[in-house]
């Protein structure tokens, strides 16, 4: 489903961000991506949604290759992915519902499908009652839920989460993490970059550790 083959990303100014990574992510997997700041986690995730392309090597996501994909192919690929960030990236002047609907509108979804899909996504993240709230009226955890609902509304096969709990307190972190687990249990793969070792330690999920751009540990390959 997602396959890195000797993928290396070198930035002209800052040097190598991802160094010769080969790995694959299967359908419905839950993966923790961990490692110190600057280890290359964000760049690795960016290569999944093709915000960045490898300097050498290849990343193949759901049949779309980083080597041959055109801008239009990347746009199409992203409609099958869900992406969330530490800083939520919600539009302040739109309500929760409108933020979620936005993802459908700009990808040309039929008008009559937007309402029901938005309602379903809001219910899925436990915010059915807060659809008309603006982001500033919501807590950090709730804002991240709205962002997750926006990521889910297109029924992605994988949810890419870059430090989704980085800005949240413990309670909200646990809530968001539980939500990601539920989403995963319903069949969507999750790739989550995190610093939160506490979170990882308590789980059985596959863990990939990066350092200086390279994968230094992958629990899928380690002897149990």
């Amino acid at each position: 489903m997602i396959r890195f083959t000797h993928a290396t990303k070198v930035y002209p100014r800052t040097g190598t961000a991802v160094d010769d990574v080969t790995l694959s992510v299967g359908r419905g997997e839950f993966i923790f991506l961990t490692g110190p700041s600057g280890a290359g986690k964000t760049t690795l995730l960016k290569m999944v949604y093709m915000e960045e392309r490898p300097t050498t090597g290849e990343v193949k996501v759901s049949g779309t290759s980083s080597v041959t994909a055109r801008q239009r192919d990347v746009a199409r690929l992203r409609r099958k992915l869900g992406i969330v960030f530490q800083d939520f990236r919600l539009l302040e002047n739109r309500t929760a519902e409108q933020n979620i609907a936005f993802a459908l509108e700009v990808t040309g979804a039929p008008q009559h499908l937007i309402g029901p899909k938005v309602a379903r996504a809001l219910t899925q993240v436990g915010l059915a009652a807060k659809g008309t709230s603006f982001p500033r009226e919501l807590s950090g955890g709730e804002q991240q839920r709205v962002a997750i609902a926006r990521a889910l509304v297109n029924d992605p096969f994988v949810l890419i989460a870059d430090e989704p709990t980085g800005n949240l307190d413990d309670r909200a972190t646990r809530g968001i993490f539980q939500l990601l687990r539920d989403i995963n249990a319903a069949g969507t793969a999750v790739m989550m970059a995190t610093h939160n070792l506490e979170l990882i330690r308590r789980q059985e999920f596959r863990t990939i550790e990066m350092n200086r751009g390279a994968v230094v540990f992958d629990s899928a390959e380690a002897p149990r």
Partner: protein
Amino acid sequence: MRTLRDALITFQRTPLLSALSVTTIAFSLFAFGLFGLVALNIREALDRLEDRVEIRAFIADSTETEQVAQAAGDIATFPQVLSAQVVTQAQALARAQRELGEFRDVFEGAVLPASIDVRLKPGMRDPATVKRVAARVKAFPFIDDIRYGEEWIEKLYRLRNIAGIAGLGLGIAFAAVSMIIIGATIRMAVLARAKEISIMRLVGATDSYIRRPFLIEGFTKGVLGGLLALLLTWIARTVIDRYLIQTVFFDGKLIALGLLAGALIGLVGSSVSVGRHLRRI
């Protein structure tokens, strides 16, 4: 629908810059329009004058009538020639007396030379053709002298060309300025919506979708500028018509062409700018 709404939002967000871009497009096209109007009216005048363009070939006194008639017949077969008519001495005198009215006594007992009056086909009345035909007519041995309004025809043609070139030059300069201003407005609009655009990309909107409202915005400004220019030109024409000389205005086709030019300026200006700035988001 959403695209259209997005396009109109910019007008609200930056009303001053939007008005400025519409105005510069209007001035660009107004410059085109004014000089175009001058060129058009000179052309109109030329057409009217050209109707009267005649080559008058005066015939030597001793020439046989038959010879003259045959020559007139020959001249009439030239491809540029509409008609070639023989005017005898008596007819020439009668015409002169008729045309000069009260001064007819001057011609009492005068002898005017006979001539062949040559009229050219429409579209064949430009200075070069007139000159060429005149030269051919002059080649007949019994032609004494030949007259045609060479000087004023050439002057009018030159005037028309100058008006055309001046309008084109000024118009292009203004068009360049308006494209730059439109580019600046688009740049501000793109930057103001940077977050929105980055989210659009993230959720899989295509670049052409993201670009569309900006292009519609440029197009709308161009058409508005064109309409404003049309209004200005029409006012200018009305003033000239009332206080100076009677003039003609553009026909529907030329008006449509003007509006199209405005739309094109807006579209090109916004397209170049949006392409450049989207890459930076």
